[in-house]
């Protein structure tokens, strides 16, 4: 543990001693690495970072760090994160989710978190499948992907999280590929620093139930144009791209949610006394 350890920090300072149970080759390993690198670059002490998650493979990530973690019920991570951030605006809050947790059962909160524009970062590890329950379609799954729970495919148009985020008022929108550690790290850093609600979709392959996603390594490419602050322009680009361009796609200028709770930073000596350290 690195409680109250002075910086500077390295990525290793943010890792817990819990061994991830993800399948070998899961993209989420890379997201964990990028996240810890980003936190080190941000220089946020582990005890000043809160990671909030819901249910699913990706939502296990808080336990693999030694930041504050909250593993909530399925789909409610954004609402939990909002509560945490308004009560403790001094903390760096990242909500870590997956496409099932975030866009399906928790889809409603996604819209309103974007609208509310609380200063926190929403990272969704999108593998286009429910991995933990062993291979059912999620809202981002392709319409022709066949499974027992969607005989012959869902036939449904996939959910487009980036456009939804933009249309709902997110202040920062980016897409990354988990295998691009440098790019993902850089984008998480920028997302955390950007005021208001930042949304980062990370294409993170599920090699067990979607082995075809291994191809993302070659399909993804860095966006050839600079991020814009014009939502209409960003929407047009995002809706017409191939779904695999990465990087920051939109940097908004909306005023973040105004906090009314005073920061409650206390003297470490009092904490030490309370916790009998």
């Amino acid at each position, binding site marked *: 543990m690195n409680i109250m350890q002075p910086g500077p920090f390295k990525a290793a300072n943010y890792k817990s001693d819990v061994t991830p149970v993800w399948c070998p080759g899961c993209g989420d390993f890379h997201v964990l690495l990028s996240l810890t690198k980003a936190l080190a670059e941000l220089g946020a002490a582990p005890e000043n970072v809160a990671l909030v998650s819901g249910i699913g493979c990706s939502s296990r990530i808080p336990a693999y760090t030694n930041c504050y973690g909250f593993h909530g019920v399925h789909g409610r991570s954004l609402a939990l994160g909002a509560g945490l951030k308004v009560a403790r605006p001094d903390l760096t809050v990242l909500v870590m989710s997956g496409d099932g947790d975030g866009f399906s059962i928790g889809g409603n909160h996604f819209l309103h978190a974007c609208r509310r524009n609380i200063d926190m970062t929403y990272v969704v590890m999108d593998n286009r499948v429910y991995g933990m329950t062993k291979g059912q*379609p999620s809202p981002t799954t392709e319409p022709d992907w066949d499974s027992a*729970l969607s005989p012959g495919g869902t036939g449904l148009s996939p959910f487009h999280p980036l456009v939804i985020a933009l249309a709902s008022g997110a202040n920062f929108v980016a897409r990354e590929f988990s295998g691009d550690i440098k790019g993902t790290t850089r984008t998480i850093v920028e997302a955390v620093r950007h005021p208001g609600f930042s949304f980062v979709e990370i294409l993170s392959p599920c090699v067990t139930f979607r082995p075809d996603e291994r191809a993302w390594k070659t399909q993804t490419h860095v966006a050839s144009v600079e991020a814009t602050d014009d939502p209409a322009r960003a929407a047009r680009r995002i809706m017409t791209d191939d779904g695999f361009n990465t990087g920051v796609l939109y940097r908004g200028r909306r005023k973040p949610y105004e906090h009314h709770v005073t920061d409650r930073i206390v003297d470490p000596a009092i904490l030490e006394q309370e916790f009998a350290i």
Partner: protein
Amino acid sequence: MLKQTEGSQAVAEAIALCRPEVVCAYPITPQTHIVEGVGALVKAGKIENCEFINVESEFAALSVAIGASAAGARAYTATASQGLLFMGEAVYNAAGLGLPIVMTIGNRAIGAPINIWNDHTDSMSMKDSGWIQLFAETNQEAVDLHIQAFRLAEELSCPVMVCMDGFILTHAYERIDVPSQEEVDAFLPPYDPIQVLDPVEPYSIGAMVGPEAFTEVRYLAHEKQLQALRRIPEIGAVFKDVFGRQSGGLIHSYRTEGAETIAVALGSVNGTIKEVIDGMRDDGAAVGSVSICSFRPFPLDELRAALVGAKHVVVIEKSLAPGLGGIVASNIRMALRETAVPVYTVIAGLGGRPITMNSLREVLEAAGNMRLPDVQFLDLDHGAVEREILRAKQTRRAGPTAENILRNLGHAAVAGND
């Protein structure tokens, strides 16, 4: 046809035989195999005229089923644990509207702390929603209860939950007699709804009802359950005529003749209890057991008749009402009101903790020797509990209980499953 198969798969086949018209599916452990099994049968063309919908949440699953049922379709869904809680508002809605939906519950604990294993906390949370709740003792009974459930639900226009223990039944492979389509068709007539979309008289359901009529509507929901008390054994008898085996009914008594101590339980643990009863009977103890199949409606009269001759009633229950003790035991006390029969609560099997024959025998013997407290927790680790209570006394900032207990027992606290 007799086959060696998984409980979930057999239930999926039973659902297919009941010719559902709308099936709503959302994955949650340990129920997922059932809806996946139904999906595979739809894909294989084994269910005609069936709309299989993969939805975005459990709340959506039951809401879609409510819409389908209101439109006159035979509707089915399944869930477990957190999924049942999440659909809670729709659970009450379906019952209040009197829509005969059948839903399987793959019984599982409720978090926090997150736990994917079996107990009955999920079903118990909805015991007063107005749904009929049937508990399967075996996978054969789970198959049979689903077939009976559609008939019962549709006759009374009341939704039915068929509860089967997660993993212990849902994931167990055993010999199961899955009936033929002809047999099921002979038993289960096509759905004849009491509410239809009548083009002559379009109407809106979901009325706002004020104090002038709310009690009457609720009373009628209660009255419907009382009708079910009569119909459940009758439907079980018809089922026996068609399928040749006894399944369902209100309660099953086992070796209760002359029994001084009687164990009562819901679901699959009755198998273990019967083994214990056999062993104790062999040793000369006067013990028996009663398995409750219909928990809602609650068969007060039948239980009273089965238990009133006992000296001790021990209720083994896989759920806990914190601050009270046992839910099933409280109901049993209602059945035994104005008698002197003591009813003990034994909370067992929470979050998947094994219920062993040795531990069961100990509590049954303790009851016989008047040494059982009103509420007992089977195999509770008193040391771990005491250490945590002490810790909480010593420091205000004791931290989260679950993580402390795990650390205390030498486990790393890890994230869960869904």
